[in-house]
């Protein structure tokens, strides 16, 4: 009597109640969602009338599956304890990963340099690599604004668009070469970065995000509607291809192939574009790494950590924010000019909010502020998206699940820790728990 064996202990009773309650709530949400999506099937009949039939059996199965699944997840959670990277990965593996981390950047760089050599015949892989590198560069550019300065920018695509249209319009209207337009495109984009920066100086967090989002849309809508200048929805076509400092990559007599005395191949241009974007991305990376060690870069990071303390130390937060916007926009503009010359045709459709969201996802997924993380994330996002192509209609589903799992496993991104910009004895990685995410 005094030792009941079958009855649950008092401590586990509320736990069971909680699990059942949660499962019932999940099942209810599933019922509401699926009752129309699955429970009733509608179709247009042969004469245009509405035909519908019910599938309550399928609905019941799914709701039951949700109920059962919720219980299983809660039980698993009870066994595994609170989730965190430390629980899933044993310490030796973590230290091995830290050592591998030191070699991954040089190894990736060497591999990237060799990509055109290894995959010379595979046009698809070369094109994909160029795309990945473009996003690596955009990610590195946005990383200055979001990762270092902690200013959430949802309208980064606007600078990409300004860069692309700057090159396209200057080249088609005035016949300026790519190498003259590239710096101009960057400067124009960074001018727009400053123009965006001014009105949002006092905004923080969600409010800043909304205004930058609106800014991205404004630029796109202006491009669509200013038909006389931009061609509106028809875009700009016939954008000149880049030249190797004046030598065109064409089959003609003055082309590079003829001058070098080798047989012309259209792959030459692809390889050239590959190395061009690689060089641009590496310049972005080099400048960002340099800037982090300069007072301006430290001020960006300090701004992310504590804006009030920055002001108390005599740091002009206005110019600090504006330079962050301008620097990020500069790289976005460069990437835009490259995009225009690679495509040969641009239209407003290439500069939708989706692009901003994708680049921001790359920065967040990579680990805010980490250069290597952003590169890996761009590879995972763009490359991974292509990798799942074989799954056809399940592609987005698998991709979404993969991203959710990655964020559960590493909530602060692939490379979540911060490396100090200056050290006396030894540079120690700073845990992401201490590093702030910025507040505006």
């Amino acid at each position, binding site marked *: 009597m005094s030792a009941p064996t079958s009855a649950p202990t008092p401590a586990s009773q509320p736990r069971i109640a909680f699990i059942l309650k949660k499962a019932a709530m999940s099942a209810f949400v599933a019922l509401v969602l699926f009752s129309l999506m699955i429970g009733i099937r509608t179709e247009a009949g042969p004469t245009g009338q509405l035909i519908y039939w019910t599938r309550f059996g399928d609905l019941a199965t799914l709701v039951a599956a949700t109920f059962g699944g919720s219980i299983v997840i809660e039980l698993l959670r009870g066994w595994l304890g609170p989730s965190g990277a430390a629980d899933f990965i044993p310490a030796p593996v973590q230290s091995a990963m830290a050592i591998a981390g030191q070699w991954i950047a040089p190894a990736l760089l060497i591999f990237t340099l060799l990509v055109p050599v290894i995959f010379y015949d595979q046009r698809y892989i070369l094109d994909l690599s160029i795309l990945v590198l473009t996003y690596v560069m955009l990610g590195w550019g946005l990383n200055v604004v979001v990762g270092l300065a902690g200013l959430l920018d949802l309208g980064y695509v606007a600078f990409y668009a300004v860069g692309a249209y700057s090159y396209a319009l200057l080249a088609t209207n005035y016949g300026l070469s790519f190498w003259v337009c590239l710096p101009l495109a960057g400067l124009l984009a960074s001018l727009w970065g400053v123009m965006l920066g001014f009105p949002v100086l006092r905004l923080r967090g969600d409010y800043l995000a909304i205004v930058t989002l609106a800014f991205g849309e404004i630029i796109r809508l202006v491009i669509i509607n200013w038909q006389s200048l931009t061609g509106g929805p028809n875009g700009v076509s016939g954008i000149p291809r880049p030249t190797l400092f004046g030598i065109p990559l064409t089959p003609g007599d003055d082309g590079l192939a003829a001058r070098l005395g080798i047989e012309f191949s259209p792959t030459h241009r692809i390889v050239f574009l590959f190395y061009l974007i690689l060089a641009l991305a590496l310049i972005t990376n080099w*400048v960002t790494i*340099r*800037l982090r060690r*300069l*007072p*301006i870069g*430290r*001020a960006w*990071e*300090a701004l992310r*950590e*504590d804006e*009030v*303390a*920055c*002001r*108390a*130390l*005599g*740091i*002009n*937060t206005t110019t600090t924010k504006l*330079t962050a916007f301008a620097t990020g926009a500069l790289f976005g503009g460069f990437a835009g000019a490259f995009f225009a010359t690679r495509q040969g045709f641009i239209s407003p459709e290439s500069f939708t909010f989706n692009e901003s969201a994708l680049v921001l996802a790359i920065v967040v997924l990579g680990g805010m502020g980490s250069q290597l993380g952003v590169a890996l994330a761009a590879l995972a996002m763009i490359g991974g998206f292509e990798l799942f192509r074989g799954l056809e209609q399940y592609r987005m589903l698998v991709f979404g699940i993969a991203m959710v799992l990655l964020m559960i496993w590493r909530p602060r991104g692939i490379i979540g820790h*911060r490396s*100090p*910009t*200056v*050290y*006396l*004895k*030894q*540079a*120690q990685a*700073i*845990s992401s728990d*201490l*590093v*702030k995410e910025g507040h505006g």
Partner: protein
Amino acid sequence: MNGDVILAIDHLTMRFGGIVAVHDLSFAAERRKITALIGPNGAGKTTVFNCITGFYKPTGGTMRLTHDAGQVIALERLNDFRISQQARVARTFQNIRLFPGMTALENLMVAQHNALMRASGLTFLGLIGAPTWRAAESSAIERSIFWLRRIGLIERADDAAGNLPYGDQRRLEIARAMCTEPALLCLDEPAAGLNTRESAALSDLLLSIRSDGTSILLIEHDMSVVMEISDHVVVMDYGVKIAEGSPQTVRDDPKVIAAYLGADEQEAIAVMESGT
């Protein structure tokens, strides 16, 4: 008060809507001295600090800062970062505001931002690694090392500031303020949360900063610290000054005792006992 005045506050008033946080406050802080601003909770001390350091724009009154060279600066006309940049007034915060994700060394480097910005030619010289920039950077590191040694944190220079113990964070915040080379250092409750040994070390640090020639304005609740190191004490209650003078005179002032008794008995007893 007839000494060499570094900061003269005249008829300072700060209103927030209908609430008068500071009413017609006048006092002066002498050069190379430690002036303490004390009073019960809610007396308006931090509001005065926020006015001096440009976080609030005072409703009325003037605040004159006189530099060693004789240059007079009207603090009420400057705002936010310019107070630190031009008037060379540095401050710390009641709730520590370090950059927790940056190392102790980086925190001190950020404090030298303005000097380093000039040396880096607004980033452009720094980007190409010009020798002038390199020299400026290494002298900034030297200064940081000097302060890390002085506060006894040289061994933890490469640790994240957020990982340091509470007392170390307090001292690091003072060192960070000192790296801006201030003429006047404003400390908002530097001894809050420190144990006896740590607050004794803090007193020594503040006295050594004073003897190096920096004037200090101090808000403090720890009466042992106030009585030990202050040269001049200003007592506030309900936004007005109720007493002023040397630590001894203030301690025996019945108005001060009443203010503390009215607000918090323990603190009043602390005031009376700290001298005996």
